[in-house]
């Protein structure tokens, strides 16, 4: 226990020193109100992806032009959220970390990540990385082979590196870390590989691990009563592969967990806590304050990992999530009690509704039948009603802007075969494609479920969304167009062909009175890999960092 105490002390000291360093914990808290910097994944601890900047607006957006582009020299899908601090932008790929001059796009340093040739096989859905966290002159990232690394932000030199776990057993990391209350928090990936998921806290100064909270309890621990006897829990899934949000007021981190494993739910009767669950955690200890499970005993791969957006609506402090399972949840973030839960896509087969009293889904025959081993069709598919790509919440319109999927799936449960480091599904499966468009960009009121507008797309968009006070929402398509829409009407007001598919996350910032928008493009990742959509054959891979501003600025 000595090392634990030491680590806490070190964290405290580091926190004090931070006040004389560039970016402190207070800077991170204030990120939303300092548009000159973008220090947190999702543009603020609340992850609204909303900016008050309005120089680029529905009237001026026609003049939006590229300022610079920087080649990532990489053909994998690019999902990195750019972090900006005092004119330096930090971007990642699966195998590199770069610092760029934000005004010119010139590289300041680039540090490669080495991993062995076996590693990419343990990433189910794209060889990606989602970006860095920053604190006290250091930046932090995770690696595909499940290491957590700190670099000197000025030089790119490695400060420390910690191996979280052995990738050979199917574990990997793609998550952008979160720094909350002085603790560096990461989550593990690998829900398709028979892992036992967890979220971890590290000391940013030293890399000492402060805590690890498993998302699947061991026998005897709270929640273990929702697992069958035997060893199902050891391969029970519950990855935590997307960054959580943080409420400094209550000192609570919110983090979603993914599917239970294997997909064949018949071999793990019970609710299977804390898979498919929204967790409220104490950042210092990892203790679970409350939990809310969205899909109990999940047979569909309906992860609850999607971003947890914090907002104040009608005086209530809420947490919102457009879940893979097709429901848009609004929870009281003090208690985890649902306030609203509406379907945000047209077809949701597995449940009629969510009972707001009990918090549990009112399930259908589909939910029961799929566990029997019969071929069962279900919509939305494992891509979800919404996939990983983060939505934005615009407090002005009160809408969430969501890239939705309109794809179904069928599967049949079979005996799962466990082999370390290899897919552990226990199902045979096939896609069910719709006749027409496979996705829609939607504006949805989270409290009422009302769809303000929707823009269909043949190939579903799977890029992040950015909303601004300029009454605009930005997103991108898998065919390469970076796009702006009128937030009120859904009218497309601008687009630019970036040269490769977009699965990245736009963000905005300002410098000397000019508003900039930055986006990482580079096609690939889950839809491109899994769908076999041959219409993408003419869209080359190859990522760039693009930065835009109004012409003349």
């Amino acid at each position: 226990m000595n090392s634990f105490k030491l680590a806490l002390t070190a964290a405290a000291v580091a926190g004090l020193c931070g006040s004389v360093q560039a970016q402190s914990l207070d800077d991170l808290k204030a990120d939303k109100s300092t548009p000159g910097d973008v220090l947190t994944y999702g543009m603020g601890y609340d992850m609204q992806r909303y900016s008050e900047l309005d120089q680029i607006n529905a009237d001026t957006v026609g003049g939006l032009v590229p300022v610079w582009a920087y080649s990532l020299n990489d053909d994998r899908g690019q999902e990195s959220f750019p972090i900006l601090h005092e004119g330096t932008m930090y971007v990642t790929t699966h195998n590199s970390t770069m610092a760029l001059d934000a005004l010119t796009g010139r590289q300041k340093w680039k540090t490669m990540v080495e991993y062995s040739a076996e590693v990419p096989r343990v990433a189910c859905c794209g060889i990606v990385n989602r970006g860095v966290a920053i604190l006290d002159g250091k930046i932090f990232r995770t690696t595909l082979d499940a290491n957590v690394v700190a670099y000197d932000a000025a030089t790119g030199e490695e400060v420390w590196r910690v191996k979280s776990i052995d990738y050979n057993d199917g574990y990997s990391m793609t998550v952008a870390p979160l720094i909350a209350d002085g603790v560096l928090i990461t989550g593990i990936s690998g829900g398709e590989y028979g892992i036992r998921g967890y979220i971890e806290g590290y000391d940013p100064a030293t890399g000492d691990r402060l805590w690890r909270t498993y998302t699947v309890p061991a026998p005897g621990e709270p929640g273990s009563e929702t697992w069958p006897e035997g060893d199902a829990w050891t391969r029970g899934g519950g990855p935590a592969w997307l960054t959580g949000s943080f409420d400094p007021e209550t000192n609570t981190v919110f983090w979603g967990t993914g599917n239970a494993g294997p997909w064949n739910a018949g071999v793990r009767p019970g609710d299977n806590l804390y898979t498919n669950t929204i967790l409220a955690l104490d950042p210092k200890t990892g203790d679970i304050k409350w939990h809310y499970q969205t899909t109990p005993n999940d047979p569909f791969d309906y992860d609850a990992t999607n971003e947890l957006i914090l907002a104040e609506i009608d005086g209530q402090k809420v947490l919102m999530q457009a879940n893979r399972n097709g429901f848009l949840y609004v929870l009281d973030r003090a208690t985890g009690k649902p306030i609203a839960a509406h379907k945000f896509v047209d077809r949701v087969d597995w449940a009629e509704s969510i009972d707001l009293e009990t918090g549990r889904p009112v399930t259908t025959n589909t939910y029961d039948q799929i566990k029997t081993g019969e071929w069962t069709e279900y919509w939305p598919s494992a891509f979800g009603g919404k996939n990983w790509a983060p939505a934005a919440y615009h407090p002005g319109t009160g809408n969430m802007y969501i890239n939705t999927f309109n794809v179904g799936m069928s599967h049949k449960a079979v005996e799962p075969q466990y082999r370390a480091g290899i897919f552990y599904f226990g199902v045979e499966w096939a896609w069910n494609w719709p006749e027409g468009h496979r996705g829609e960009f939607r504006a949805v009121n989270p409290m009422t479920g009302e769809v303000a507008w929707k823009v269909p797309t043949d190939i579903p968009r799977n890029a992040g969304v950015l909303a601004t006070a300029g009454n605009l929402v930005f997103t991108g398509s898998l065919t390469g167009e970076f796009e702006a829409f009128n937030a009120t009407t859904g009218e497309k007001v601008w687009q630019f062909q970036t040269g490769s598919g977009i699965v990245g996350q736009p963000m905005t910032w300002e410098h000397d009175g000019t508003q900039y928008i930055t986006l990482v493009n580079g096609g690939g990742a889950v839809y491109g890999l899994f769908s076999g959509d041959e219409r993408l054959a003419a869209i080359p891979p190859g990522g760039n960092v693009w930065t835009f501003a109004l012409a003349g600025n």
Partner: protein
Amino acid sequence: MMLKRSLYGAILAGLAMVSSPALSQDLDKLVKDGKASYDQLCSKCHGKDLVNSGASSFDLREFPLDQKDRFYNSVENGFEAMPAWGDILLPGELDALWAYVATKGGTQPMPEDDASLDAPEAVPTLVAEGKLTACLARNGGALSGKRSDGGVGLDYLVLADIAEALELDLDVVWFESEQEEESDPVRESYAQLAYPLCDITASHPLYENTFGPPHTPTAALPRWLHMPTTFNLRSHVTLKPVAVTRPYMRSEIGMVVRPKIQDFSMEGLEDLHGLKLGLQQGTLSGMVAWVQAPRDVIKTARMFNPGPKYLWEIEQGKHDVDVAIVDVTAFDHHLRQNPISDLRLAEWRHALGMNIGFAILEENAALIAQVNAAVDDLVASGAVAQRATESRMHYAKPKEPLILGALTQDSIRDIR
């Protein structure tokens, strides 16, 4: 606890590079297996049913079918965006994947193997011109034994058949296999081939780590008949990589029953309740029983020392066991030496077995290819089974998996 000395006496030796697709499997089965592996390993990047835009992963429908070696190399070692899989592929899995990809999921005929991909059609290198020289144990029981007019035993007879198929004379170097715990038949085999004392050795298990690069740089030779009196056995031989051929038989695990047990029948180890079980340390059969037999059976079971005395002790009633788990070949040896034995072998066989082939230096690709073809023919025609009958052996044909992966107590637990 890893498998150390799994089979009786002379059986161990070891290596394997098997290039042709697996044992008497027809193409449909191979493609079906390939699809199962593809779905699990490959589909996430190369698309379900091979359908893929080619934008972010190679479109395997376009893979040039005359570049099988490229396919194998890319899968095993990785190439650019492709991860390496060589360390976790199961025996035969790569052949199945190739069959699935090359036939486009079974919709196209299998392309003819490009002859240039196989071992070059060179003339085999032989220790003595016109002869296939084999090292065989002089005291190898049912597997090999020297006679004034040649030899007996399954290994001897099958090697004679192979030599005939290769239009060579069989010449045997008879060596003394040490039936001591310390001797390592696999290493002896490496030494005999590297010296070179002979072209081929027999009874080599197709087990991970029994072939390929040597585990030690040098090893000692066992004593052999007509060994020059000036030869210093302590001067070690520098070893070379060794390959195993296609298998000609399978070593299986069975249950020996003492006469006092009447009407014995069993379907699995769980049927042994109430019986006193004998098992032998350091053998595969012993480990299987230890891991899989019901706890109440293990509590009363008796453990016997390694070595050939095991079945004699059972025969003599030592510890008064009722049944004894054995490697079937060991029982054949026992019967050979004690034809009036009261012990009988139950019908039951355990699911875990190991294919047995011959060992040849890896560099002698031409000989490997010729022996492979001959072995496959002899197995398929039933000639090997016939030779086993002549040798009074219980014979089992080779089975998948071709090469047994590393065994641990954990992995054995699941093989039933």
